[in-house]
């Protein structure tokens, strides 16, 4: 059985591993090049703007998200990375599961229902958590999620930040709008202390505080770890940009075409083809849609590229009355889960609040921005030094991920403009519905109240000349991109209105799969990758069992 996997990112690396372990011959075609780890760390340190893609090697032939063209009322603000390892190299590594309700968003909120339930996915969540290596405490997670009895995450929860303890000491047990508040540990894909029977890959998290975009210690999971565990039957070819999938007259996929380049700085390339019994597209939500559109496949429902969603993130920032020691350790180790559900979900988007431990780094560019402000105000010498210390040591932020519902009008299409290889660039029409805007506004009000409870000095401000600024009900708002693009090859229970079935198999093509967040009918309020990884393992299991016996038992070391 010859499988071709398109993309050696998060989803592709996981699927290739399971297939390889089960005797498939797997060819992984990866558009990007490899980045040397030490070089990337060095590039991070020397970059003026430490944005997520900055440390990584980029090529002219396989541009990353910076080649997107925005045409809608709002800019799609999330980056993705085309490099071996994909966006999964730059991610933060926060891994909360979705809630059971999040699989029924059409019934209780807005958007679409899933064709499967939380219970169908639960065993694969466990398998994914063991494969990736997640640090969390099952009892703590059970405070808001049904985690299987007797289950242990492979690593104990990471210690909470000092900031978390300060916040919890004030807000735990209090309530806002009838929601009881509780600060809950967030599952993390970075190494903590292992439980018996688990051997972590890589070093213990040492607190470098640069997980996104790069962990110098390699304590954070990246797909390179999974690639190291690939069996000998998996072959990786980097610098190969797939630009077409071919099907025969019956809809069976026969081969893929790809463009291979050597040089980082030009579009010079050679053309190749590869035959396959099964093709798995794992090129990221936007690139999967682009590739299906370029190939003219899988689109009898007219849903390819549609339903593009993300988490518009609202940032708010303030000063605690006392120093809290920001910029030590991971970006966020806890959150407030209370607003992820509730009856309001029928009226406005729900949200999840991360307690942000990296000061105003993301929101305002601290400490450079504070320094500039004080220097402009005339501070010099000891007064300046003291002002910076006083300001930055008390900083914290709330990072709120707001659900965005599947909306067919938010979509990826092919632009007339071409990239260096002559392929169309993705064109994005993106907007925020009133449901989302109401959610952002509600989130802002909750942050205001939290700051008041904490006696924190609110410094949040959104200005008309800033990117992604808008007003809603007369209130200034702004959103940031979370990097969680999904929905573009949406999964459903009918071929009439969805692109893939519950196995992420294209309805129109029995041997073509599209995997990743693009399959998700809703994103809920959790960072999506652990759910995407669970789905990928479920698909791999299906591929193996539709040929031989199931692998779940074999693959999952989870009790």
């Amino acid at each position, binding site marked *: 059985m010859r499988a071709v996997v398109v993309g050696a990112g998060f989803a592709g690396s996981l699927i290739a591993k399971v297939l390889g372990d089960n005797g498939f011959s797997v060819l992984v075609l990866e558009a990007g090049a490899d980045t040397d780890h030490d070089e990337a*760390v*060095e590039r*991070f*340190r*020397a*970059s*003026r703007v*430490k944005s997520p893609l900055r440390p990584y090697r980029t090529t002219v032939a396989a541009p990353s998200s910076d080649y997107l063209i925005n045409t809608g009322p709002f800019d799609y603000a999330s980056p993705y990375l085309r490099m071996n390892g994909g966006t999964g190299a730059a991610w933060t590594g926060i891994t909360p599961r979705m809630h059971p309700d999040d699989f029924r968003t059409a019934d209780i909120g807005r958007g679409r229902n899933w064709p499967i339930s939380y219970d169908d996915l639960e065993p694969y969540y466990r398998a994914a958590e063991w494969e990736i290596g997640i640090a969390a405490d099952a009892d703590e997670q059970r405070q808001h999620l049904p985690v299987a009895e007797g289950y242990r995450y492979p690593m104990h929860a990471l*210690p*909470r*930040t*000092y900031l978390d*303890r300060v916040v919890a000491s004030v807000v735990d047990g209090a309530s806002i709008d009838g929601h009881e508040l509780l600060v809950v540990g967030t599952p993390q894909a970075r190494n*903590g202390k292992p439980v018996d029977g688990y051997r972590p890959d890589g070093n*213990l*998290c*040492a*607190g*470098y*505080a*640069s997980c996104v975009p*790069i962990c*110098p*210690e390699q304590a954070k999971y990246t797909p390179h770890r999974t690639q190291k565990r690939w069996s000998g039957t998996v072959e990786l070819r980097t610098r190969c940009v797939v630009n077409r999938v071919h099907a025969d007259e019956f809809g069976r996929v026969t081969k893929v075409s790809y463009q291979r380049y050597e040089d980082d700085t030009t579009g010079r390339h050679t053309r190749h083809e590869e035959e396959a019994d099964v093709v798995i597209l794992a090129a990221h939500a936007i690139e999967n849609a682009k590739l299906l559109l370029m190939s003219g496949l899988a689109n009898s429902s007219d849903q390819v590229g549609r339903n593009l969603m993300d988490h518009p993130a609202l940032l708010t920032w303030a000063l605690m009355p006392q*120093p*809290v*020691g*920001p*910029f*030590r*350790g*991971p970006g966020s*180790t806890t959150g407030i889960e209370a607003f992820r559900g509730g009856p309001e979900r029928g009226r406005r988007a729900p949200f999840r609040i991360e307690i942000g*431990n*990296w000061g105003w*780094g993301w929101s305002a560019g601290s*400490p*450079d921005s*504070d*320094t*500039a402000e004080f*220097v*402009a105000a005339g501070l*010099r*010498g*000891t*007064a*300046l*030094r*003291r002002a*910076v*210390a006083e300001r*930055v*040591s008390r900083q914290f932020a709330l990072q709120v991920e707001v659900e965005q519902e599947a909306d067919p009008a938010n979509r990826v299409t092919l632009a007339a403009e071409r990239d260096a290889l002559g392929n169309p660039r993705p064109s994005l029409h993106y907007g925020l519905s009133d449901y989302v805007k109401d959610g952002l506004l509600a989130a802002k009000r909750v942050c205001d109240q939290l700051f008041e409870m904490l006696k924190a000095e609110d410094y949040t401000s959104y200005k008309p000349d800033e990117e992604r600024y808008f007003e809603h009900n007369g209130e200034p708002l702004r959103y940031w991109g979370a990097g969680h693009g999904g929905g573009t090859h949406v999964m459903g229970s009918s071929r009439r209105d969805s692109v893939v079935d519950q196995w992420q198999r294209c309805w129109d093509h029995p041997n073509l799969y599209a995997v990743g967040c693009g399959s998700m009918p809703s994103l809920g309020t959790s960072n999506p990758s652990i759910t995407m990884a669970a789905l990928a393992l479920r698909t791999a299991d299906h591929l193996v069992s539709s040929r031989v016996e199931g692998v779940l038992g074999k693959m999952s070391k989870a009790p």
Partner: protein
Amino acid sequence: MDAFVELSAELTGFSAEELRSTGLVEQYRALAQDASHAEIIELWYTGVWRGVIPSSRAYAEGLAWKAVGVAPPGTRAPGFGSWEHRPRRSSL
């Protein structure tokens, strides 16, 4: 006496010894020949010279971070679990 170090100490609030220990005095002196006071402070505090970071050391030795008492992200690790503790007061 070194006029550049003296001026830098006065502007930044860090002693001549603290500035020398960064290993950046020579590099910064060369860069900052015709710099304004604000530019000299920006260079020492953030490691940025007219929009670029001249070396990764410039980032790693940024005085803004030293004022706060933490390492710039991705340069030095305080160790597993260090983030649990109440931060120590800065020395000023």
